[in-house]
């Protein structure tokens, strides 16, 4: 059992406030990912949980006990650092056994736990090597092994994959997810990489400028972003955002005018959208498809071909509201679009979003089935 509760947590350095009041609950065995742009405070928040940063204000509870004044050595957590922070003067074996040695574990117990961790992480062959004689991926495993042997209440990961190459990163993502299932442990993972967040998290916490923008499951964040920031941050390629005006509200949703004169009905709560107000229309790139009767039209400016996918950058024309805006359409397969030609794009209304003047999302009329 390990739960974590943050209440009005704040951190300031002098007059600069880095964490501006964070409330958050993380359940037992949950894999929570803190994600956000650099400087958003996600690492600071993790380090406050770890006990490496002093908490300026607010309360931090682990398993219901307030631990603000408890030092990092006594919180019973383990952390995997971005730099791995292996002890360079110790062998892999000693690196993993160090915490146990400090805790006064017997030699036999130390050996057993190190053996178990090295078996899980396939490090048996490297136990007597020094960190400098290991590859990046192996160092990463040792850092994880150092955490595993302690059976911590909560695992903390601070951008652990950012120093690995793309192939290894993909592999480690899967291994970490497997490890989470096998160990059935509570984990908190910090990253700026939304792919890591989407693929591993039970719960994503999106942070910006020291505040939580939204907390939810990956698909909840994808299909029901609470605001423009989350909408723009989650999803790749980014959600297309077009400034539009409300034409009318009707039972099916809010009807907005598109660049080029077309219209689309966004299935959101229409009570807050008076006709004539400026709002932001969000369309996921995969919701745009070439089609003769499409509501949007424009010239193809640029085509990115990924083989299985084609990304068409289309300049949508003839708009009083959004002159020269470009949208990206993500088309399945190798679509025969060419730079320079004019195409029409149909919009899947189910994958569209509407944001009010303050950037808050208007709630959808129905939830996505996987993001309830």
């Amino acid at each position, binding site marked *: 059992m390990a739960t974590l509760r943050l209440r009005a947590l704040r951190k300031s350095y002098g007059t600069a406030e880095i964490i501006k009041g964070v409330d958050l609950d993380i359940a037992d065995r949950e894999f929570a990912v803190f994600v956000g742009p650099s400087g958003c405070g996600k690492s600071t928040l993790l380090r406050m949980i770890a006990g490496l940063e*002093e*908490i*300026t204000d607010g309360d931090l509870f682990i398993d219901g006990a307030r631990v*603000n004044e*408890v*030092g990092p050595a006594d919180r019973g957590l383990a952390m995997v650092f971005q730099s791995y922070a292996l002890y360079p003067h110790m062998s892999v074996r000693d690196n993993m056994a160090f915490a146990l040695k400090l805790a006064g574990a017997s030699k036999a117990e130390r050996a057993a736990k190190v053996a178990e961790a090295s078996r899980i992480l396939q490090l048996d062959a490297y136990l007597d090597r020094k960190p400098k004689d290991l590859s990046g991926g192996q160092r990463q495993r040792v850092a994880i092994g150092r955490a595993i042997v302690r059976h911590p209440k909560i695992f903390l990961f601070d951008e652990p994959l950012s120093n690995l190459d793309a192939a290894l990163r993909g592999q480690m993502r899967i291994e970490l997810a497997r490890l989470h299932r096998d160990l059935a442990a509570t984990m908190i993972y910090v990253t700026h990489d939304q792919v890591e967040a989407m693929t591993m998290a039970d719960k994503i916490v999106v942070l910006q400028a020291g505040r939580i923008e939204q907390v939810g499951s990956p698909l909840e964040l994808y299909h029901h972003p609470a605001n423009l920031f989350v909408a723009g941050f989650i999803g790749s390629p980014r959600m297309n955002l077009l400034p539009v005006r409300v034409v009318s509200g009707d039972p099916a949703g809010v009807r907005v005018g598109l660049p080029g004169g077309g219209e689309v009905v966004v299935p959101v709560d229409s009570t807050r959208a008076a006709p004539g107000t400026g709002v932001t229309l969000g369309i996921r790139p995969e919701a745009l498809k070439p089609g003769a009767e499409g509501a949007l039209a424009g010239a193809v400016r640029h085509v990115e071909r990924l083989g299985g996918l084609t990304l068409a950058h289309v300049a949508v024309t003839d708009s009083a509201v959004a002159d020269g805006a470009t949208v990206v359409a993500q088309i399945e397969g190798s679509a025969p679009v060419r730079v320079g030609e004019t195409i029409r794009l149909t919009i899947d209304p189910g994958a569209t979003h509407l944001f009010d003047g303050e950037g808050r999302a208007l709630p959808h009329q129905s939830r996505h089935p996987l993001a309830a």
Partner: protein
Amino acid sequence: MSTPSTAPAKGRRFNGLPLIGPSVTVLLIWMIVPLVMTVWFSLQRYNLLDPTVTGFAGIDNYEFLVTDPDFWASLANTLILVGSVLAITVVGGTLLAVLFDQPFPGRDVARLFAIAPFFVMPTVAALIWKNLMMHPIYGVFGAAARALGLPAVDWFADHPLLSVILIVSWEWLPFALLILLTAVQSLDREQLEAARMDGAGAVAQFVYIVLPHLSRAISVVVMIETIFLLTVFAEIYVTTAGGPGNATTNLAFLIYARALLQYDVGGASAGGVVAIVLANIVAFFLVRTIARRLEV
């Protein structure tokens, strides 16, 4: 953002005081107590040999000091000694640093020999020079002069201050070399190659690239040497004992003589205050230079 001052501290702050406290405390005592005592004694009539001499002297000790020709002679000797040694070691050290930056066979071994004098204790340095080198009859210099048909020089009789300057320079030249060589080696080689591409010869490279790069290290060498050179003592103590007359009495030796040969605590303390003031003028610039580079 500030929390109300009545709110209890919420976080756990690392308390470093027990770890840093002892060092700070002993250094504070080491600095304050003798300083206050020196200033206090300098205002007292106080002679260890004559307990009847007591009481507040005001500025009498200072007045006596500045009207004493020995004091001005010692101040002049101090400045000449510091100035000459600085000139010799900085110029020599810079040239040697550039020389030892060039590759040549056995360079690392030669460098070890060149820096050796810095690790020699001052009493050894002084006596080796006085007896083995500069002795008019038995010394190497005298023998060399005679071999060339020249009269041998009685260094400590005829040029006492110059002799002391030579000895002290020999001790400190390796220091300048060691520091400046480290600084030269941190010079980006591409800068020199770029200068060569621009048509700079060896002299131009030295003047326009190497010297400016060294300026910081040179200023550090000057200041650190000054601090030590202001209080050169052992070299004088074992060679000339300040003489002949007061020819090699510097401020340090004057204070020593006043305090431990004449037992005039008040007068010696007044001299001590002068030495402290002099050193602090230099220290001010040194601390400022180092502070600029300090990252905490």
